[in-house]
């Protein structure tokens, strides 16, 4: 086992309205620990001393639930590409930096709950605004009844990889949720099953995104680089196209049903 000493500077804030500040912790890190396990060790120590442990979000610890977001030395999910914080290992820090700054995701759309925990339910509301897709239910269809070109289904899968962790918002200099919303709009928009509600979905999800107070896209490209799933900014161009087209042409269901 190889261990090394690090100093953590962790953002501590009791409540959404309390004044927060960085607190320092000296830790002996094992290179085989994950970043969250390292924080667990810190927390056990804090609990033993009768102090408040550092609050951070986590769930699956296998890189698929998207809960474990934090900004480590200025990078959402830390220095390793295509990796969530829970999958980040301390060996990444073996050769320094030994000073590690840990901050919560900072965005008006992600209000802080406590320490490193933020409220990402804005994302849920964007998803909800997307609504349903109309599909035929009943007896299962033959799997190949709806042909989809391989390239298209691959691209839809790439978009569907988004785990909604919010790293795109955290990394964006404008705290924009464009990459997330674009991925969600695209993965249904590409597939035949998603066509019926495609224009409404684009309009409603973009409106919801704007209502949550996220910034707009300047095309810096930081989101793609921070995304643990490597979602491409190409989807943002696709969202813009869908949205403009939908705004110009969408059949307005709400207006119609007002009439009857």
């Amino acid at each position, binding site marked *: 086992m190889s261990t090394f000493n690090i100093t953590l*500077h962790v*953002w501590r804030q009791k409540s959404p309205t309390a004044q927060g500040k*960085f607190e320092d912790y000296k830790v002996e890190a094992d290179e085989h620990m994950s970043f969250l396990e390292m924080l667990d060790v810190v927390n056990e120590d804090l609990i033993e001393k009768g102090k408040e442990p550092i609050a951070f979000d986590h769930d699956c610890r296998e890189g698929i639930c998207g809960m474990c977001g934090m*900004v480590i*030395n*200025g*990078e959402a999910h830390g220095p390793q590409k295509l990796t969530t914080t829970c999958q980040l290992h301390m060996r990444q820090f073996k050769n320094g930096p030994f000073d590690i*700054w840990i*901050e919560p995701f*900072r*965005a*008006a*759309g992600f209000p802080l709950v406590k320490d490193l925990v933020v409220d990402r339910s804005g994302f849920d509301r964007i998803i909800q605004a997307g609504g349903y897709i109309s599909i035929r239910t009943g007896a299962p269809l033959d799997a190949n009844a709806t042909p989809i070109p391989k390239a298209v289904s691959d691209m839809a899968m790439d978009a569907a990889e988004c785990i909604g962790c919010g790293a795109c918002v955290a990394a964006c*200099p*404008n*705290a*924009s949720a464009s990459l997330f919303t674009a991925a969600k709009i695209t993965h249904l928009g590409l597939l035949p099953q998603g066509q019926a509600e495609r224009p409404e979905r684009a309009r409603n999800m*973009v*409106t919801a*995104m*704007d209502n949550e*107070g*996220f*910034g*707009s*896209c*300047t*095309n*810096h*490209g*930081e989101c*793609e*680089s*921070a995304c643990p799933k490597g979602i491409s*900014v*190409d989807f*943002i*161009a*696709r*969202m*813009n*196209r*869908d*949205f*403009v087209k939908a*705004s*110009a042409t969408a059949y307005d269901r709400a207006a119609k049903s007002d009439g009857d």
Partner: protein
Amino acid sequence: MQRALTLYQSTIGKKVAMALSGLVIIGFSIGHMLGNLNAYAGEVAFNEYAEGLANLPFIVWPTRFLLLACFGIHIASAFTLVTRNKDARPQAYHVTKHHEATFASKAMPISGIALFLFVGFHLLHFTLAPQLFNAAHFENPFWNFYAGLSHPVLALVYIAGNLALGLHIYHGFFSAFQSIGANHPKYNPLRRDAAVGLATILTVANLMFPISVQLGYIEAPAGYEAAMADAAAPVNDAPAGDH
């Protein structure tokens, strides 16, 4: 119209408006630069070009209105979006590390403000109130061009303004494709190349005007020095521009 306004209410709509207005202004900037190349062909060619334009009011005025509208839309959207983006992150990070954002992309609001000041200055200088800046004002476009750019301080303002323009277009021309949703895996890499190429050509060509005048590569027109000698009188007897 209703739909266009609804579209404009969204952040994406504003970005599309910025991109389209920016592209129109870029188009104009290219034409403007090409027209000015006449300066290398000498006084006669330059003035013929300038008067040719002046004799096309049905082209000049609609273009001016279009540009004014584009600047209005561009600036109004820029202001709303930049304010919104600031509000979207009320508390800054203690440490930030960027990978993809460029100096140009981060400086868009600053190069934008610089361009606003520069365009305002440029309009005053050559069109609205040249007497504010030049020792003398002439009825001859080439003489005015020369009078403006031979002044070292004004030449520096033109150099700074065009560096800001280059920086703005370096990111803007690339970004506009994304904003209007013009992307395709086959052509995506070209967007960056096109932006670099366009920004370079436009900036270098524009910078060369003040530099050429300063270095004497574009020479003072015949009679200019003599006229400047008695420039104490603001109205003077420079040869009129018609030939």
